[in-house]
């Protein structure tokens, strides 16, 4: 974390320079110094040293906003401003966010805290913040025009309310919302319970992230804000795989993952190797009797889901949105299906005109992950990310739950690839085919009753 002064010295100055409105230092006197984050890495949990104690969360590829206590009130300072977000190494997006990053920092408070949030608008247009899911006075709900005047460019507004309800929440603008959300303005909010809560368990690891989606033309930097459904960048906290950090746990840790959805479609979030329960929504903790086991939970638009499980099984377990296109990075949505198309001779013809042309898609899209071909600048291959056994062929909303026996408590660093014990991995069958036990009525020829003619791909051709 860097202070505002350092920030101006550093690379982040670009983003400050593009801020259309400047806010004078004098006008900021007396406010909590805004803290700016320039790194896209997952920051260690922010242990509270003032105010009521609580067990902090870890924001995936994000951070928690520090506060100051002022006569018993927790004061935060959010600065709405243009930022450069590294969505994956080598792929930067020009977004709008808070305090140097998009999404903005996570705000963590404790049930019953009195919270005062200064919001300084360094965007080129007015903004406001809506505190999604909070019980608060109507005038603090942040809908520009309805509850308040929008915060003009260059001005600082104050929101103040009591964090009444423990749970998982978020914040986002409610002024020119379409543009500002498409540009990445959003953040997480966690209200920890003050005392032991019958429906809220203590956990060893508490992760949170937002689902967000962008339409960034390959080679460009700014999301297309007019896009309604046809997004090409599906992200956890504005990061795409392999740019997303893994969720790590020590074996038998109780793990909570909080997910909020600010995209324009639902996301069935799926965990491998474990079953979990949905223990809470943005409406609050789910009564124990109402929980049921899942391996996939659908997070609808504008919803939050809080899942919990025991990380009982060692390994590197995939954790992702189950919409297969959401685990892809930017790709053409109008690319013809080349599957099974014989390219012989035509390739030679095309190559004489386009020497760099290579056949792709004839056997499927896995070629894409295998071939390392030059791409437009500032984008990443549609599926990529190498595992210990080759390409993972995933992008977008994909990461891993890494469960290790010896992961120290409080250590969130990536433990590397899991070493599978001898004999616990799928392997190639090379022995004789055993005659399976069959029903007596089954024909012994082994041929299906109806033969379907399908052109089978045979080997690699045309490469």
């Amino acid at each position, binding site marked *: 974390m860097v202070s505002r002064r350092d920030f101006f010295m550093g690379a982040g100055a670009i983003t400050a320079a593009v801020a259309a409105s400047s806010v004078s230092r004098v006008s900021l006197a007396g406010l909590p110094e805004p803290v700016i984050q320039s790194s896209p890495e997952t920051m260690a949990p922010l242990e509270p040293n003032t105010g009521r104690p609580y067990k902090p969360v870890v924001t995936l590829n994000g951070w928690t906003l520090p506060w100051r206590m002022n006569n018993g009130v927790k004061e935060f300072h959010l600065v709405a401003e243009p930022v450069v977000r590294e969505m994956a190494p080598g792929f930067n997006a020009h977004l709008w966010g808070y305090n140097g990053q998009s999404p903005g920092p996570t705000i963590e408070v404790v049930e019953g805290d009195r919270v005062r949030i200064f919001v300084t608008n360094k965007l080129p247009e007015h903004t406001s913040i809506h505190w999604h899911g909070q019980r608060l006075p109507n005038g603090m709900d942040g809908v520009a025009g309805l509850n308040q005047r929008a915060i003009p460019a260059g001005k600082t507004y104050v929101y103040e309310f009591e964090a009444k309800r423990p749970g998982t929440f978020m914040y986002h603008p409610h002024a020119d919302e379409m543009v500002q959300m498409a540009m990445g303005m959003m953040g997480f909010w966690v209200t920890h319970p003050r005392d032991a809560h019958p429906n809220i368990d203590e956990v060893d690891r508490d992760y949170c992230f937002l689902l967000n989606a962008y339409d960034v033309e*390959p*080679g460009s930097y700014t999301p297309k804000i007019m896009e309604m459904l046809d997004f090409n960048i599906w992200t956890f906290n504005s990061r795409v795989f392999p740019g997303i950090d893994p969720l790590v746990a020590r074996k038998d840790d109780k793990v909570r993952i909080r997910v909020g959805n600010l995209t324009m479609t639902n996301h069935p979030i799926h965990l491998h190797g474990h079953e979990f329960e949905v223990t809470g929504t943005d409406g609050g903790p789910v009564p124990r009797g109402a929980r049921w086991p899942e391996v996939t939970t659908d997070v609808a638009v504008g919803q939050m889901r809080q899942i919990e499980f025991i990380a009982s099984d060692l390994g590197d377990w995939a954790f992702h949105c189950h919409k297969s296109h959401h685990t892809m990075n*930017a*790709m*053409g949505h*109008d*690319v*013809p*299906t*080349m*599957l*099974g*198309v*014989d*390219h012989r*001779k*035509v390739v030679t*013809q*095309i190559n*004489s*005109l*386009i020497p*760099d*042309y*290579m056949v*792709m*898609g004839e056997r499927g*899209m896995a070629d*894409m992950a295998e*071939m390392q*071909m*030059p*791409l*437009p600048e500032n*984008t990443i*291959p*549609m599926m990529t990310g190498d595992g210990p056994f080759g390409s993972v062929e995933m992008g977008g909303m994909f990461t891993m739950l890494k469960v290790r026996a010896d992961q120290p408590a409080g250590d969130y660093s990536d433990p590397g690839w899991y070493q599978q014990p001898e004999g616990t991995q799928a392997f190639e069958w090379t022995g004789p085919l055993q005659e399976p036990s069959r029903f007596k009525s089954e024909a012994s020829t082994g041929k299906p009753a109806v033969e379907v003619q399908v*052109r089978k791909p045979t080997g690699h051709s045309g490469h």
Partner: protein
Amino acid sequence: MNKTNTALARLGSTGVLLLTLAGCAGLAPQSSLEQVQQQSAELTGQDSLHWATEQDQPPVVRERIAELLAEPLALESAVEIALMNNPGLQARLFDLGIADAQRVQASRLPNPGFSIGRMTRGSEVEWERGLHLNLGSLIALPLTRRIADGQNAQVQREVSLSVMRLATDTRIAWYRAVAAQQSLAYSEQVLQAADAGAEMAHRMAAVGNYSALQKAREQSFYAEAALSHLQARQEQVASHERLVRLLGLWGEQTNFTLPERLPDVPAEPLDQPDIEQQAMASRLDVQAAQQGAERLATNLKLGKATRFINVLELGISNNSSNEEPVQRGYEITVELPLFDWSGARMAGNEARYMQQLQRTAEVAINARSQVRESYQAYRTAWDVAAHYRDEIVPLRKRISEENMLLYNGMFIGVFELLADAREQISTVNRYLQAQSDFWVAQSELDLVRFGPVTPSEANSASTTPASPAGGH
């Protein structure tokens, strides 16, 4: 007798002098050819003019042409062949011979007349002999010769211009032929891209990935490309034939090849602020018009000088009789300018002179205008070609490179890539047309310094369609 003898002797010696004068104007067509050679060389850069005086080409010429045609035909080789071999030019060269003959004719004295009469009176026989010479022609001779010389010079100029025009036409035809040949190669590439697309679509439909509509759409690109290819082939044949005609070739000779590419457009255009002044000094039509005017002025002077003299006839008489001593003397016949004081002729000459003055002014004004127009056409052609070279083609290339990257990332498919390839090829083809237009404009600018040019072809040829069948 003494007196008349002397007179006769004097007359005789004048005659000899005149004959000598007339005699030094011999036939010299070869020097006319050299003049033409000299005048045209500045544009043609060639010294290959010759008379086809015999029915068959001399072996030297035949061999030289064969030698030039054996290699891919270079631009200046084409000009050399045209100057040696174009039958139209050969026909034109004979104008030099005709003019030269006329010049010599004009400088000869009119033949004197001789009269003889025999008269008898009784036993007396009287012989009357007379030698008559038209004095007017004699006096006018130096002027007439100047006029004839001028006429000869004018023909030389016209022939020179024909030579330069042929050289220019040949160059233009050469540029067009090379460009058409290159264009044909590009259209083959477009056809190939469209063919690949059609074939791919066919195979996609065969495995069930494409609908009949999608397949038909790709095939229609191919059909259109085939059409453009036919047109390109026609243009190639037509331009080749035009060059063949200018080179005067036939039979086996027409199978020559051309270089693969047009020369590059120069990095910088010619900057010629004083091109108008230069052209005024070098334009042959301006010179001819001026000389025409001078000749008419001389004619006018001649008319004035011979106004009365041309009705004067000097005769020498020698009358002898068997009875009398020889009677010698001379007689002068004077036509009384009673009815024709030559006023009408004078007025006509004057009008013709004034007419020629106006024509000269017109020629000069047109020449200046043509030079400016040609230079402007040249500059525009350079600007267009350079814009293609420096902006459009590199951008198009950049687009193709970026499209290749998009294809690599599976952002676009093979059909977009093929459509882009077609697009790129036709852009390069349009650049080629611009290049060819530039060289035509350059050739016309070269010629306009010597004679009239209608800057025509440069703009008409670049009507290649923007791009075949839009794409996706």
